[in-house]
């Protein structure tokens, strides 16, 4: 059990109350709900709980957290900084090692970013930046991926491709998504948030369209 009847949020007024959450092996969860419903808050709490259990977690935050002045390659390399000591990281910053370059290169080619490998992130388009944040998480790898609207700036085809790639690479995934069809196609389990509570938690097959629409009403 990751969360057990917890209230989540900042300060006096919690964003979510009475949240319980477990994540079984092989599960792919899509979080649905209107903006402000608490998806980001829930992801933050899950991140802390997963780390506390000693999981290796890859993260795609909504604001991406890229360093605009650095190249695509180096931003992606950041996914594995905690695997090495400071000396390795500092020398790798000055001149990335061939092995790391090759490893990240594979990820970047999957995401269609190979031509931009050595370009500074500040000159990229919104969709490209989002894919750099994804590249960082894919390069990090691990057991779990948490993503907050990780494909919102990509077109449908590209988004679907990347989601299926994520599904293949990570054993457990939790994503906040706003495209309902995309979510239903990707997830093995859908969690709906509304009015500060979890109001829906079922497999896509068991959910009627009306219940999902009610989330956004």
């Amino acid at each position, binding site marked *: 059990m990751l969360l057990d009847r917890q209230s989540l949020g900042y300060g006096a007024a919690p964003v979510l109350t009475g949240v319980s959450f477990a994540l079984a092996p092989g599960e792919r969860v899509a979080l649905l709900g209107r903006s402000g419903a608490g998806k980001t808050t829930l992801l933050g709490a899950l*991140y802390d709980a997963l780390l506390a259990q000693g999981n290796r977690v890859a993260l795609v935050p909504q604001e991406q957290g890229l*360093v605009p*002045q650095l190249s695509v390659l180096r931003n992606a390399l*950041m996914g594995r900084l905690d695997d090495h000591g400071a000396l390795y990281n500092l020398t790798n910053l000055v001149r990335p090692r061939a092995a790391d370059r090759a490893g990240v290169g594979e990820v970047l080619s999957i995401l269609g970013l190979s031509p931009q490998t050595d370009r500074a992130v500040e000159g990229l388009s919104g969709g490209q930046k989002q894919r750099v944040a994804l590249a960082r998480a894919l390069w990090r790898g691990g057991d779990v991926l948490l993503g907050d609207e990780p494909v919102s700036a990509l077109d449908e085809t590209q988004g679907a491709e990347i989601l299926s790639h994520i599904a293949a690479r990570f054993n457990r995934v939790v994503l906040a998504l706003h495209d309902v069809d995309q979510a239903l196609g990707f997830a093995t389990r859908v969690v709906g948030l509304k009015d500060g509570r979890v109001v829906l938690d079922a497999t896509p097959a068991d959910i009627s369209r009306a219940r999902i629409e009610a989330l956004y009403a």
Partner: protein
Amino acid sequence: MPEHLSRLQVTAGLLLLALLALPFADLTLAGHDPRGVLWRMAQGFLAPDFSAVDEIGRALLLTVMFAVAGVAAGGVAGVIMAPFYDRPGLRAFCIALRSVHELFWALLLLQVFGIGALTGVLAIALPYAGIFAKVFAEHLDEADQRSARALPKGVDALSRFLYARAPLALEPMRIYALYRLECGLRSSAVLGFIGLPTLGFQLDSFFRQGEYGAASAIMILYVALIASIRLWMRWRLVPVWIAAALGVLASVQSPPMGQGALWRFLTEDIVPVPLRGGCDGAALADWLRDILTMEALPGLVATVICAQIALALTGAVAFFGFGLIVPRVSGRVGAALGHLGLVILRSFPEYMLAYLFVQVFGPSMLPAILALSLHNGAIIGHLLGRQAEALCPDLRADAPRGATLWGWELVPRLFGPFLALCLYRWEIILRETAVMGLLGVMTLGFFIDSAMAELRLDRALVLLVVAGGLTAAVDALSRAIRRRLGTGALRRVPRETLLGERA
């Protein structure tokens, strides 16, 4: 110069200049017993001796009073000039005022007013007036212009200014004035080294008598004074402080100057020798060539060599040092220690640090370069560290810590501001390098000091113009480079934090 310069090009250029200067720099150890002096100083500093209460108290009091009076006078003059700063004549006048160092102003004023309170106050007030006018004018420009535009058409200029322009710029101006007072405390302390009764004078006499414990005591109190400035300098107390300064400074005893000193200075002393007996063009040309080739040129070259090396080292100190005050990089204890180190280094003016190093290493470029790079590096490091701390809460949740955070997240994000700050400090470092000549380093100040000592004020004036011209030229160059770095490298840093310690 090309239309755009990359950060890499500018950094490489500055490093290259420093490397080229290195073989020509005089970095010898000229002190006869550096280790012994260092040992005695260290012993004294570890055992501060506060027993010379009278001398220490009076030196600190006068240091504050000179600073308050000088900054206040400069501030008032700056406020009056700021609205008209866009007029070329006034702008040139202000550039001239601020491109001459306080110590040089003091040396010049000594000839006219003697070693009295007026010399000290004006030596601070004159250059500060030029700086205040420029910065206040920028504050006025940056303030929201919409209220002024919303006024009815017929409003006269003064009312328009007082109602819709000045109030909007008041807050940054107040913050800046407080920062300038801190600078004034440093300037005032340093004026003691040429004989005014402030901290530098007392420190010098303690050193001459080998009383390192007393020197340590006065320096500890001085750092405490600067660090606590926000406690004792309240905006409401300003009139009280100014009244106190006038009262105390009026009581400063000074040897009287002969009648008509100012008149003699203007009509005789600073008139070139060949012109005193009548106009002799050929003699004047010889005279000028002699000064320019024998004194101005060697002084200029030495000043530039010393300053460029100091600038590169300043950058290195700041670049590697700013992480020290960021808890996510150096830990809570490390950050506290880092803060302490940077506070101490930036409280002591370059000149005073150089004075200490000269006691140990003797008068070569080494003490000057060390002092300049430690002081300026600490200032830039402090400003960058504060920006880095402000960045930390917004980093992604899985961002690293320690040196990795410094290298991967902080350095890339802050390299632009870092470079802008170094370029901004370039002019300041050059000004200070010229003045280091008073300590025996062969920069421009050395030749100015010698000319003054021989009472050849006409020569000193030519050299002062050269020093001022050099400062103004580097200021213009630095501004041109900053503009070509693009993305408003300077604009992203608010004026107060760029110059000041705390916004």
